[in-house]
């Protein structure tokens, strides 16, 4: 409450401050998504102190309305100078031809260098060899698991291979009293795990320069069948509304493993209290075999500049400011968003947190999903739909993947047409 109050006062002062100072200050419009916008306000005074001629005007947009609002802004030429963008959204705004290419800015910068970032994350910002965004904070998905339940099933370390994951799941289900409970939560209405295991199996997800779906290809199929097996054999709950509260369910041992992101660390800390406090851990994802580290998704938010901004130099200055290791660390302390800059990870705040360690390891093995504007539509509207069909047995896995490919090929028709007419 206090925090809310102080930040809203800050916001009010800030807005008035902007209106009042009608002198020749340059104002950067910065749109942020979600909670980050509230906390970023605390970092801005330092920047404005360093750069007396520049002011940063932050506007907060809720995640759910963000895409709509941003695309409308592009259509009506009302884009801000700087914006936070989920890195899977970048392709859409590149397709809209609205983002500034940042390669030249980076090559002449002392502050921002490719080597400072995790490779997999950096590459999500590159589309057709051009750089469009600078990673701001990052996320990926790892395995959250109950150490006590796994130990009871005879495993004293997190599962490291698919086989181990499957075996331990079977054993968990066999523990007396666990008949109505499950080993792992792999909701069919979340595309992430299907894509992660597909990538781990070596599938490119799409093929032919992302012109066609490659879901019925043998590699994706292998991963898909592997996951569906968990549902079919009662190792993972099929219905999603059986778990309205994942934290409660994790606490109740309703399931013992869950693949999720850093945003859940604090939530689990809140729920797993007292004697359950040390009964859970995070671990990098298992891989397809002993020799291959399992990859996960390269997620997070990037900072992008819109190409019709008239304050590009100042905006870039602000991007550089936000990319300093010390500022990244401060930002983490404020809002718990994992820093994109590797140097910030050496600090004890991050290095000393045992739950975050798995994320650090995993970030070295993250892969980008296909970078096309249709991607979200493919996974949210099609992959999830057919995954649910397969899990519930409405379709066989073969039928589901074939139908999925057909639908995806239809979606990509426009892309093929555009590529041919370039």
């Amino acid at each position, binding site marked *: 409450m206090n925090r809310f109050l102080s930040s809203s006062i800050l916001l009010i002062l800030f807005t008035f401050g902007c209106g009042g100072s009608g002198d020749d200050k340059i104002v950067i419009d910065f749109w942020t998504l979600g909670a980050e916008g509230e906390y970023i306000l605390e970092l801005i005074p330092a920047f404005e102190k360093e750069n007396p001629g520049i002011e940063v005007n932050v506007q907060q947009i809720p995640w759910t309305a963000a895409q709509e609002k941003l*695309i409308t802004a592009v259509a009506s030429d009302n884009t801000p100078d700087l914006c936070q963008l989920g890195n899977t959204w970048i392709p859409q705004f590149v397709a809209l031809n609205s983002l500034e290419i940042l390669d030249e800015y980076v090559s002449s910068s002392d502050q921002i260098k490719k080597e400072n970032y995790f490779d997999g994350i950096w590459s999500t910002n590159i589309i057709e060899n051009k750089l469009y965004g600078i990673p701001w904070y990052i996320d990926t998905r790892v395995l959250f698991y109950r150490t006590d339940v796994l130990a009871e099933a005879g495993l004293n370390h997190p599962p490291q291979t698919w086989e181990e994951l499957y075996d331990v799941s079977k054993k968990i289900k066999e523990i007396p009293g666990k008949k109505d409970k499950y080993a792992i939560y792999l909701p069919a209405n979340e595309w992430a795990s299907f894509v992660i295991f597909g990538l781990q199996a070596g599938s490119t997800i799409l093929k032919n320069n992302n012109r066609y779906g490659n879901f019925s290809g043998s590699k994706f199929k292998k991963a898909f069948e592997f996951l569906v097996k968990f549902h079919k054999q009662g190792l993972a709950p099929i*219905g999603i*509304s059986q778990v309205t509260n994942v934290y409660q369910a994790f606490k109740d041992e309703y399931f013992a493993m869950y693949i999720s992101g850093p945003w859940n660390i604090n939530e689990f800390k809140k729920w797993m209290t007292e004697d359950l406090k040390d009964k859970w851990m995070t671990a990098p994802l298992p891989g397809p075999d002993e020799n291959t580290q399992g990859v996960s998704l390269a997620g997070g938010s990037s900072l992008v500049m819109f190409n019709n901004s008239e304050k590009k130099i100042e905006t870039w200055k602000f991007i550089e400011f936000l990319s300093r290791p010390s500022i990244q660390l401060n930002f983490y302390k404020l809002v718990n968003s994992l820093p994109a800059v590797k140097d910030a990870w050496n600090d004890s705040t991050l290095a000393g947190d045992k739950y975050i360690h798995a994320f650090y390891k995993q970030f070295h093995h993250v892969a980008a999903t296909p970078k096309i504007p249709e991607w979200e539509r493919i996974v949210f*509207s099609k992959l999830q*739909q057919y995954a649910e069909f397969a899990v519930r047995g409405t379709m066989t896995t073969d039928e589901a993947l074939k139908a999925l490919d057909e639908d995806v090929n239809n979606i990509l028709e*426009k892309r093929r047409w555009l590529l041919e007419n370039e």
Partner: protein
Amino acid sequence: MRIRYSAPYLFLTPALTAIFVFFFIPVIAAFVISFTDFDIYAINNFGTARFIGFDNYKALINDQLFWTSLKNTFYFVIAAGPLSIAISLGAAILLSSKLVRLKPLFRLTYFLPVVTTLVAVAIVWRFIYHPRFGILNYFLEFFGINPIDWLGDPNWAMPAIILMAVWKNFGYNMIIFIAGLQNIPEDLYEAATIDGANGWQKFKKITLPMLAPTTLFISIITMIGFFQLFAEPYVMTQGGPLNSTLSIVQYMYQEGFRWWNMGYSAAIAFVLFLIIFTGTLIQFKLQKSPEA
């Protein structure tokens, strides 16, 4: 002569201009867009939109998801519409009865769901429907009924949405029915009582015929409203499980504002318009024909 007649049009001009600019132009534009493949690529570059004739409409015919959403919407309208009207009529008659005390309190209570924000209501209903901890399953257990996964089971999700939508909306119709009931002259009932009519006869021969215009109004408004089912499944199930609660409007919204297929989305909108238009015409016809 002519000048005299032009005066009203002059006064109508501002309103007509507003309607023309903010209603007819967008509708016409949407109609044109429904014949193109206007999508995310076209938003900033109209050149990439292709005129594709009736392809969007043809694609709709082969679109399983569209038929699913159509089926779901009809299911909802046919089940929830009459149910909602019957319950609101029943509540209105009870509240108009001379035997009921504290009428304003009941009216207020029944009307409360209408004015409550749906999102807040949805959270409560999600708890009610919870398969393991929900109060609904708890009550059903007394009758020996096994727990039902209301929002997670494709067969039960739509009934659950119907129940909630009816509960949320019947208060509005009830108020209109109460107003209609108050317009029925008391002497009709008195005359019927003298003639020896019983309660049911009075209801059938006086209340229902006298309420006919109100009922027509309510059934049309309810039908139009229910065909545009959106918010309830949007907050409760997001159209799932297995698309069993995906409504037409929700599908249209998804295609248009989530995936930016404006052309396809506009085509869905016009199909929905035709359906509602036909439905309204049928209701007018039914009400005009002499009742059996």
